[in-house]
């Protein structure tokens, strides 16, 4: 479990996270959403010890990432949004990196690369952005860490790769893992998420499971907005609206609408 208490962080004098407290539990895939600049990537870097904060605490299974202990680092993996990759082949890079991860599954890595149609002998520097991204995502899943942080994972992926990616993550999920996906492309990953967290600079605006959100809110598209709607946006086919769910009937969450609603009432 990840426990964040009163966490603040600033780049010189620009504050990005201010007194944030939250937890991430095992066996869930979190969607971490937030406007540009609220500190999603900063949060990932703090979680894996690439940055350290002077205010507040982070504990992952009771250990502070700031200590960068090998035993701790072998449990986490972070895929940044813009992974460049070194001037070496994918296989050599994977052989090196996987040394530090005891649960690494080489056969799984080979299979995932096959599904992504990536040649393991290619150098990262010879690959396109999307190919680099597929290679590092395949490695990230094959390392089989307890914690996996994916920053905009579908950015740069072509259309078939996005579906492959969803199938791979769904297959990789088990009750011991915690996967946090930060994204603006909510449609790419919404079927994967079972928990949604909306972050703002000074607060966690929403931290709820998908099933709780469905029980609490009703998402509709109708010719006219319901009289008691909490939030309405015009859209194709009528008004997209959010109301309180009073009937118990569950609807599909429109994450973009939810995001705009939650940000409008902060």
């Amino acid at each position, binding site marked *: 479990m990840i426990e964040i208490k009163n966490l603040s962080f600033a780049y010189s004098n620009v504050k990005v996270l201010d007194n944030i407290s939250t937890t991430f539990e095992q*066996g*869930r*895939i979190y969607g971490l959403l937030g406007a540009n600049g609220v500190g999603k990537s900063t949060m990932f870097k703090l979680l894996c010890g690439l940055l350290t904060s002077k205010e507040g605490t982070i504990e992952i299974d009771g250990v502070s990432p700031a200590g960068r202990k090998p035993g701790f680092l072998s449990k986490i993996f972070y895929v940044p949004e813009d992974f460049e990759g070194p001037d070496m082949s994918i296989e050599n890079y994977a052989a090196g990196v996987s040394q530090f991860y005891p649960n690494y599954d080489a056969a799984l890595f080979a299979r995932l690369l096959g599904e992504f149609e990536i040649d393991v002998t290619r150098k990262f520097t010879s690959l396109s952005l999307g190919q680099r991204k597929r290679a590092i995502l395949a490695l990230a899943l094959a390392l089989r860490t307890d914690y996996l942080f994916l920053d905009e994972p579908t950015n740069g992926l072509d259309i078939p790769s996005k*579906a492959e990616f*969803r*199938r*791979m*993550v*769904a*297959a990789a*999920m*088990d009750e011991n893992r915690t996967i946090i996906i930060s994204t603006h492309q909510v449609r790419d990953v919404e*079927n*994967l*998420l*079972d928990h949604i967290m909306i972050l703002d600079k000074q607060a966690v605006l929403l931290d709820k499971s*998908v*099933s709780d959100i*469905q029980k609490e809110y009703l*998402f*509709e*598209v109708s010719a006219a907005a319901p009289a008691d709607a909490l939030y309405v946006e015009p859209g194709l086919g009528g008004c997209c609206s959010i109301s309180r769910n009073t009937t118990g009937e*569950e*609807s*599909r*969450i429109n994450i973009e609408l939810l995001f705009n609603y939650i940000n409008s009432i902060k």
Partner: protein
Amino acid sequence: MEYNEHKPIYLQNVDLMQEKIVRGEWPEEERIPSIREMGAMVGVNPNTIVRSYQLLESQDIIYNKRGMGYYVKDGAVARIKENIKKEFINNELPLFKAKAEMLGISKDELTKLL
């Protein structure tokens, strides 16, 4: 797998599973994919898939053989068709009827078309 806009994902997965059973792709008394396999097949979180399996289990469509996985229950096809028929009569037929009446299509005309 394409999902429609309004039904929650776990219910859309229920539709997909029922379709596989009715079409005989998953025969009665045979094992169906595990929750994890199903999730991987359609690219959906296994925790969401669990809800589909729970619903189908509560409706006697599938059952869990301890240690063996999920199986399609005997008589599942008939029960699914009965459920879909009810849904059709309660939800779709009234809309169909209202539209036919609005357009002034007579019963005879409808019978010929059907």
